[in-house]
């Protein structure tokens, strides 16, 4: 077994994988192969500049990337890499799990880090919703998915050389894709926000969002939420929810209003510099994750905050 294999259906993510993939390969003194699916020649060549010795340029006529899992698995089997890095998007995880099954390999999803320790590869990932971190030594051929933006894109060096091998991919057309509808991004990017106010089920109705918006405006914050607010109540778009299955954020200030602070939520916010919580339940777990907190009814606290900040 040799080499590191990287793939994502999103070429920006492939470049992020090449960043970490290249540095692991340098330590292990092995080559990096990147797979590009239906990318232009320029984009494919860009992957060489970002650190791949070889690029497999797959092309096929089915626009649904999941339909190429078998083809990607075949490419991986031919290369027989000791590590496969796949971009941890939802589509990436779908493909990764099936490849892992066909090849009888391990799969670590959403690794937070990956490094070489005594010539063995080790990853860290969350367990129990973020309560714990699990460190594991990878078996050979293991697949690891890494969430987008975990690493920066590799710097392009146009002087790098490598081979581009073009292949035609065979899609599996068992799943028929009808309508595809993009979800329009309605809010600013929370990932880069300085201040975030996060609302949870403590808010009794959608019309009370106004209260939160007023406070956000006062302190110059973006608005995020817990999963239920986005997925059950639909008061805010999906990309606004923070946590294990949502966004990870690292603002200077994270202020929660009516969020109990279950670990699956707080795991997305605990890189914030300062965490502030407002909740009426003194025992809510959010308070043990907070720097500052007010135990009280948000309908009394928030208007008072707005009033005092106005002065």
């Amino acid at each position, binding site marked *: 077994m040799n080499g590191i294999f990287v793939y994502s259906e999103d070429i920006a993510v492939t470049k992020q994988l090449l960043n970490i993939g290249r540095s692991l390969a340098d330590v292990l003194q092995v080559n990096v192969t990147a797979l590009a699916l239906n990318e232009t020649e320029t984009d494919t060549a860009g992957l060489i500049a970002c650190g791949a010795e070889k690029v497999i340029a797959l092309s096929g006529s089915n626009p649904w990337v999941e339909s190429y899992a078998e083809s990607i698995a075949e490419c991986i089997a031919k290369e027989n890499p000791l590590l496969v890095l796949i971009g941890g998007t939802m589509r990436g995880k779908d493909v990764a*799990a099936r490849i892992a*099954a066909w090849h009888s*390999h391990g*799969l670590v999803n959403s690794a937070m880090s990956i490094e070489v320790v005594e010539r063995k590869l080790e990853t860290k990932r*969350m*367990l129990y919703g973020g309560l714990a971190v699990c*460190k594991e030594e990878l078996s050979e051929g293991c697949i690891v998915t890494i969430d987008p933006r975990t690493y920066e894109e590799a710097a392009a060096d146009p002087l790098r050389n490598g081979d581009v091998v073009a292949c035609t991919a065979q899609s599996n057309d*068992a799943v028929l894709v009808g309508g595809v509808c993009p979800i329009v991004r309605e809010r600013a990017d929370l990932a880069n926000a300085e201040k975030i106010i996060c609302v949870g089920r403590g808010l009794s109705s959608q019309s009370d969002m106004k209260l939160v918006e007023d406070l956000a405006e006062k302190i110059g914050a973006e608005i995020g939420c817990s999963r239920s607010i986005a997925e059950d109540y639909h008061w805010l778009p999906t990309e606004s929810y923070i946590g294990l299955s949502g966004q990870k954020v690292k603002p200077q200030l994270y202020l929660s209003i009516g969020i109990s602070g279950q670990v699956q939520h707080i795991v997305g916010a605990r890189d914030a510099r300062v965490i502030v919580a407002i909740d009426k339940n003194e025992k809510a777990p959010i*308070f043990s994750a907070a720097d500052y907190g007010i135990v009280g009814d948000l309908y009394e606290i928030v208007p008072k905050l707005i009033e005092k*900040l106005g002065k």
Partner: protein
Amino acid sequence: MDIVACYKWVLDEQDIKIVPGSLLLDTSRAKGKISDYDKNVIEEAVLQAEKDDTVTVTALTFGNAKAKQSLKDALSRGPVKGYWVNDAAADIADGFVTANVLTAALKKIGAYDLILFGEGSSDAYGQQVGPRVAALLGIPVVTFVTKLEISEGKVMAARKIGDCTEDVTVNLPAVITLLPEVCKPRIPGLKQVLGASKKPVQEFKLADLDLVAENTLPKNKIKSIQGYAMDRKNEIYTDGTVDEKVNTLIASLTKEGLL
């Protein structure tokens, strides 16, 4: 038409304590529960059966001896029969082993048109068992589904994939993994709970299943599991008037340079 709802019996993470200093996990007080999103999985299967009386729903789990208590809970939610692969191997199983075991169990059961999984389990959140089983059975999978409709040997499903939604159609048999938004799990009533004890449970041991030894050994070596150390100031204002509490908070945030 047979739907198999797969659920995992997990420790409730809210009962797990982190031992200060060593950061080891103290699970001695942790109770078990059906993995949060798997309640939605069972519910969705049962909703399908309620719409169409040719649909039969069974539940399948792979767990240790303690998972016995889960079957009553699962069956009180509507499935007509439970399948339980009862083996201590579940304690250290990874996605590779779990998928191999569930696949072997499904082959033994024989009756499956649609196999439903959660998007991820609450303890491991490995996000892989569903599509792995599909790959092993050689049938199609549709992941991250928020809506499904079965008709004439087909499933129409709506997926939610980050920044877009997709409508897809697939022939049965197939595997579907569900996002929790698909439905709200019911709270079983007393009658359902009592009725559950009368429903049949078929138990397997690993040895009853067609599995080679290497397919029951986890792939990676766990080096450590450590609690995440939360290091925060924990200045919580509990007493005083609203005015006082808000003033104190504003003072603290000003000191932090945040206002």
